[in-house]
């Protein structure tokens, strides 16, 4: 615990540099990366991350030292060339996009490795530390790095804020953007430049391979919590910042630990939690919702059968044996009994020994389902001109899903008809019925 307080007090300037630098890098990458995520170009970030390596080596060879401007310019150039090549290969040859990305990524990286090893053996003393670009060096950030990072982070943030509307429009509806006269190509160019810039500084924290993670994983995680783009960007940057800070903390407590991979493990954990536990989009939430709907459908189907049996005898409240229900529609006996028990608990069914009968409430609910079913069949035949023998399946689904508002509109549009296409009577509630 002490270590945590010591870390959070930021009294040690080294901690300040590392923590502040990591947060800057991860948060700004997360914001820019959210656009690559929304553009469905997640792996392009990966390609750029690999492709900047030869550029960094080239920058070094030309400048003769690790001048940050030379390295960034070099990285920028090859990062850009890689994107142009992917685009070119995809459009001009029969090679598909994924192959083109993988090809460019690995070949550029190979060229980068070749150049790096040549430089390392060249005897140039100032080359040491160049390999930090491979695995990142977040734990050994110093003041001057921080200045570079801050400048780049500010550029990224200002550009994103200034062009937020244009970027979002491009991500969601490129054709519309074009039709209202936006310079789509130009905006894409700016966005891509921002991504390249984010990658160039980001790889210094986490390295080439893991760069893709700090670009897209925060966005992927944030997407599960919201449908609002502004909220998503805010969450993505917060997730990014948390992972940056945790990474810095871990490498502070355990200096032998690499910071970059830990940042990625933290952000991945946040993402996995989001994938599973996010309320509406998460795997578990989705599963629960599906189970609930399945239950409703089962319940209403059983009530419907009891109602239909009641129609045959002109009395809805006759208690029935389980076998009578099964004869009308097949169920596993045990499954049916558990549905019946559930309905009994909810007060829709009354049980007398082995006989089950509708209650007043149960009859009303079943009546509504049957009514919607028959109204829908009529709607499909009259308005959609579908043959009467083709409408049952569709009605069987919609009867469980229609909201009361839509139900009312359906009644009004059709003018409270008396019978469905198969001449079965459409049952309304008593108050409506008497008015007719």
């Amino acid at each position, binding site marked *: 615990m002490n270590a945590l307080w010591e870390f959070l007090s930021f009294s040690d300037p080294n901690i300040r540099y590392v923590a502040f630098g990591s947060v800057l890098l991860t948060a700004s990458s997360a914001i820019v990366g959210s656009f690559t995520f929304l553009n469905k170009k997640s792996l392009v970030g990966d390609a750029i991350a690999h492709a900047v390596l030869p550029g960094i080596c080239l920058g070094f060879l030309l400048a003769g030292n690790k001048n940050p401007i030379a390295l960034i310019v070099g990285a920028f150039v090859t990062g850009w060339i890689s994107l142009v090549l992917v685009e070119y290969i995809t459009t001009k040859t029969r090679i598909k996009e994924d192959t083109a*990305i*993988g090809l460019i990524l690995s070949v550029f990286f190979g060229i980068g490795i070749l150049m790096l090893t040549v430089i390392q053996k060249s005897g140039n003393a100032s080359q040491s530390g160049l390999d930090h670009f491979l695995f990142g060096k977040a734990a050994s950030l110093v003041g001057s790095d921080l200045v570079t990072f801050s400048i780049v982070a500010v550029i990224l943030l200002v550009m994103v804020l200034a062009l937020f509307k244009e970027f979002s429009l491009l991500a969601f509806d490129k054709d519309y953007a074009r039709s209202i006269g936006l310079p789509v190509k130009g905006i894409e160019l700016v966005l891509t430049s921002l991504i390249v810039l984010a990658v160039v500084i980001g790889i210094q924290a986490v390295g080439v*391979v893991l760069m893709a993670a700090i670009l897209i994983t925060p966005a992927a995680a944030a997407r599960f919590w919201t449908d609002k783009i502004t909220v998503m960007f805010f969450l993505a940057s917060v997730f990014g910042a948390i992972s940056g800070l945790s990474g810095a903390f871990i490498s502070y407590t355990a200096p032998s630990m690499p910071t970059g991979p830990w940042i990625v493990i933290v952000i991945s954990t946040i993402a996995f939690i989001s994938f599973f536990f996010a309320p509406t989009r998460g795997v578990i939430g989705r599963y629960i919702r599906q189970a609930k709907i399945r239950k409703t459908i089962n319940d209403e189907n059983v009530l419907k059968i009891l109602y239909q049996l009641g129609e045959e005898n002109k009395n809805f409240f006759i208690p029935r044996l389980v076998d009578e229900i099964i004869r009308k529609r097949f169920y596993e006996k045990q499954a049916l009994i558990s549905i019946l028990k559930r309905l009994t608990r909810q007060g829709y069914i009354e049980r007398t020994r082995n006989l089950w009968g509708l209650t007043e409430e149960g009859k009303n609910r079943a009546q509504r389902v049957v009514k919607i079913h028959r109204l829908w069949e009529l709607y499909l035949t009259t308005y959609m001109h579908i043959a009467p023998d083709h409408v049952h399946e569709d009605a069987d689904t919609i009867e469980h899903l229609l909201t009361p508002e839509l139900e009312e509109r359906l009644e009004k549009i059709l003018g409270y008809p008396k019978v469905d296409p198969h001449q079965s009577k459409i049952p309304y509630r008593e108050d409506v019925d008497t008015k007719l």
Partner: protein
Amino acid sequence: MNDLYIILTATLVSASCALLGCFLILRRMAMVGDAISHAVLPGIVIAFLLSGSRDSVTMLLGAGIIGMFTTFLIEFFHKKARLQTDASIGVTFTWLFAIGVVMISLFAGKVDLDQDCVLYGEIAYVPLDVIITQGGVNIGPKALYVSGIILLVTLLFIFLAYRKLFLTTFDPAFASAIGISTTLWHYALMGAVSMTTVASFESVGAILVVALLIAPAATAYLLTDNFKTMLGLACLAGTISSITGYYLAVWLDGSIAGAIATMSGMLFGIAMIFSPAHGLFFRKIKAEAH
């Protein structure tokens, strides 16, 4: 002799990769191959810890399992959490690779692996690790045998399952209609890719193996419309990359694996421009002739 050993090992590795790569790029799964090659890293480290050495059998098993696990996770996030495929791939492999790197630093004393080796392999050291028989005879480097066996296994796999792999690649709907499980062959192929990746790991590293998986196959794809010819051409492209790459590396005094990847990219570039059927150069000439 050392030169020959290195070139031979590289050729064997690139041939296995090229063969599997043909299936990958036609199934539009090049990036899944990329993901697997990164994701096997924790599998390699675990196998290392369990067996205490670079015992190949444990490693291949560990890699096979992790490779299938990766494939499963990518599918799971895509299907169950409805994450778009590209993001699903990106999230999964970076996570596993990060775990692998952390494990390497965690067990630095116990695992004879370093980060550079992960990135670009140690093919230059291949001739040093030789097998010496009980009679004391030096019968050549271990890596050579490992990559030879992997190539044999890959060839056997493709030979025996050719029809099924072919059908599930080109017409999955028809394949499942006649009772071939597309899922089974999907996973079988991914298992093979994982094993090849691991076998190539010591030679070219976990990342440059992607170049060998994709580039020769993509080159071959530009040269022919016949799948069997494509398999052959891909192996040829892999071999040429290995030989020329080796001499390029010697000439520049740099990483051999990096040079092989560079050459494989060069070959692709040449094919892209000068391929008789699909090359940009001849297409242009034809267009002008019309």
